[in-house]
């Protein structure tokens, strides 16, 4: 099986496209345009990235919960505009039509940025990303490799905290002591980080002047067309939405 198209793209180019799409989405407040973005991002992810529908489904659950919160708070608590219709009311809670629309818009916008990000993350190897950021985006290698170390660190922190919680419980303390746990966590995390740093320096990390790369990551210049086409598609989607009369851009207000 050949490697899917999106996986063969340069990580820095993909990251740039992801950021550009997210910025465009931030400007959009109607509910239809983000829906179009979601459709296109899903299509690209499944067809060109080989990403399973299940992967998206798993990501949508937490994103969706946050999105529903946005819908509810805007619909129920936004001040209704004069002449606004009230499709539903329970006691003091009055759902306003403009608030509902605004809430759905924000929620879908968040969801769209989420889906675009999932497409990026799921089609990008973290090591390739780090190599590409150092080589193509001129990110200092110390910072980029620290990101990699942090990525490895997270599961450790979770495991460690679980151990501490159990250790406290087994001592039969009247109540758990989260603060003591955090101090213990810091002390072990600090020691661990120092050890990793020393081990990296012992293999010449601190003294590297001209680093080479073992990984052959696709060059960023060959993916300029990919970036341009992606942006053109995004602009076409916005144009389509405008032509249909759906598009509304952000006008500086924070509620309906």
């Amino acid at each position: 099986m050949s490697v899917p198209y999106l996986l063969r793209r340069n990580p820095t180019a993909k990251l740039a496209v992801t950021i550009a799409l997210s910025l465009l989405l931030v400007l959009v407040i109607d509910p239809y345009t983000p829906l179009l973005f979601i459709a296109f991002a899903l299509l690209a992810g499944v067809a060109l990235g080989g990403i399973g529908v299940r992967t998206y489904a798993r990501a949508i659950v937490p994103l969706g919960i946050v999105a529903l919160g946005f819908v509810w708070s805007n619909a129920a608590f936004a001040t209704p505009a004069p002449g606004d219709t009230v499709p539903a009311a329970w006691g003091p809670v009055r759902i306003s039509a403009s608030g509902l629309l605004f809430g759905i818009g924000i929620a879908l916008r968040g969801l769209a940025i989420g889906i675009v990000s999932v497409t990026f993350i799921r089609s990008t190897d973290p090591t390739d990303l780090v190599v590409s950021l150092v080589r193509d985006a001129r990110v200092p290698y110390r910072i980029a490799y620290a990101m990699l170390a942090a990525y490895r660190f997270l599961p450790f922190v979770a495991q460690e905290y679980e151990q501490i919680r159990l250790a406290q419980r087994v001592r039969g303390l009247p109540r758990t002591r989260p603060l003591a746990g955090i101090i213990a966590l810091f002390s072990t995390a600090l020691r661990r980080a120092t050890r990793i740093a020393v081990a990296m320096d012992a293999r010449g990390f601190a003294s590297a002047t001209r680093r080479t790369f073992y990984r052959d990551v696709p060059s960023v210049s060959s993916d300029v067309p990919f970036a341009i086409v992606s942006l053109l598609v995004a602009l076409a989607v916005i144009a389509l939405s405008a032509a249909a009369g759906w598009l509304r851009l952000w006008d500086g207000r924070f509620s309906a």
Partner: protein
Amino acid sequence: MDGVIPHALDAHWDGGSLVVAGRETRSASLADLTRQVAVLFQDPETQLAMLEVDDEVAFGLENHGVDRAEMRRRVASAKARLGLEGERVPRRLDQLSGGMKQRVTLASLLALEPRGLVLDEPTANLDGDGARAVLDAIAELARDRSRSLLLIEHRLDDVLALIDRVAVLGDDGSLALGGTAEEVFVAGQDRLDELGVWIPQLRLLARALGSDALPRSPAEAARIVVERWPAHRSVPPADPSPGAPAIVARGVSYRYGRGAPWAVDGVGLAVASGEFVALVGANGSGKSTLGLLLAGALRAARGTIDSTARVGYVFQYPEHQLVTTTVAGEFRVTGAPEERVAALLARIGLAALAEANPFTLSHGQKRRLSVATALAIDPDVLILDEPTFGQDRRHSEELLAMLEELHREGRAVVVITHDLPLVADHAERVIELRDGRVVFDGPAQRYFEPAERGRPPVAEAFRIARLERADVPPLLGLRAVQRALGR
């Protein structure tokens, strides 16, 4: 020696000079030094920098600016040398066992083609199989003699056959003893006792039999046993019958989350009061999980645990259990009365440090503190997870003496451990777990019987000796030897 001090770690250089490959390390560059000398550290979890095996092996080469074609060649040859190629080896580092991670790091060092290799307790964190694989790799490097090896180690029996010279550091960091292995371990043995430095078990065996030799392998030690073991020396019977069951587990299973594999899978066993039990098995076999279940810290997903006992539990890393800012506070927090606090602190030799912050204690002191806090509830059963891990000889001996004392008081002691000499010397009963199931539960004597099972060096020496002299008893450890010899 690799220049990390003083070039990358801030340290005060008090004086003297260190010359590596003809260059003073203080004036040579870190880049040059790390090319000459590579270091393998103790903990496989805290020296990996990357996410995948190949990137890790190439990491040092990248730092030194080696070009890609050359890197490919060196990565392939280093992996081949350590048996890391092929489909069986996962690509991602987080899917490797500790022993494999150590071999990946060793491969990344060999790829740098250093002239010297420093190995800092390379097997201390590994289980039996992992340690054996890493030791085999080191033995092969030692045999080919193309580079210098400096091994920092407490446990010496497995590497005795490889050693040319030994240097012993005293408590103040000065060179206390140096010379050939014979000069240090035989001629210098009294000084080592004084310093509290480990002496190889096989040397202690020879010493107990009045020999001046330093056996380098169990077979060599067996020769000494055959020659010197007193005829018709009967072994005093040990193993007093255990008391009433204190904890009974029936069909106990546990897993960390739905869909995860069973960490403990249908375990049934009883711990009787007054027993000394060793719980053994490879890393990830479920030992600690079972310990936590028996202690009541985890609740079984299936099966039942009946316990009439108060259970104390000592974690592998003492820091995990610290909750206050003073040593005495660690006892007061669970409501221990003051006179009991004072008695326990005196017992572990920390009375003078009662008001110190527990995080500032040495590792040995923290370990003793964590044992003592478990004793604050006056437990009937004490479970300890790897109690001798990272302890020097003096602290290990102190701790084991304390456990024997608790055992004599009639408490059950359950030790989760990879430390085979500890098992051989102290445990009456061994329980082995594999993939969460009990695969052995019986007397220690019987546990070490099968030829294919890893056993401590002294037990192996007696096994070999018995092939030649049937009247030599099947002893397992040095304590049994001392007892049999009437000391």
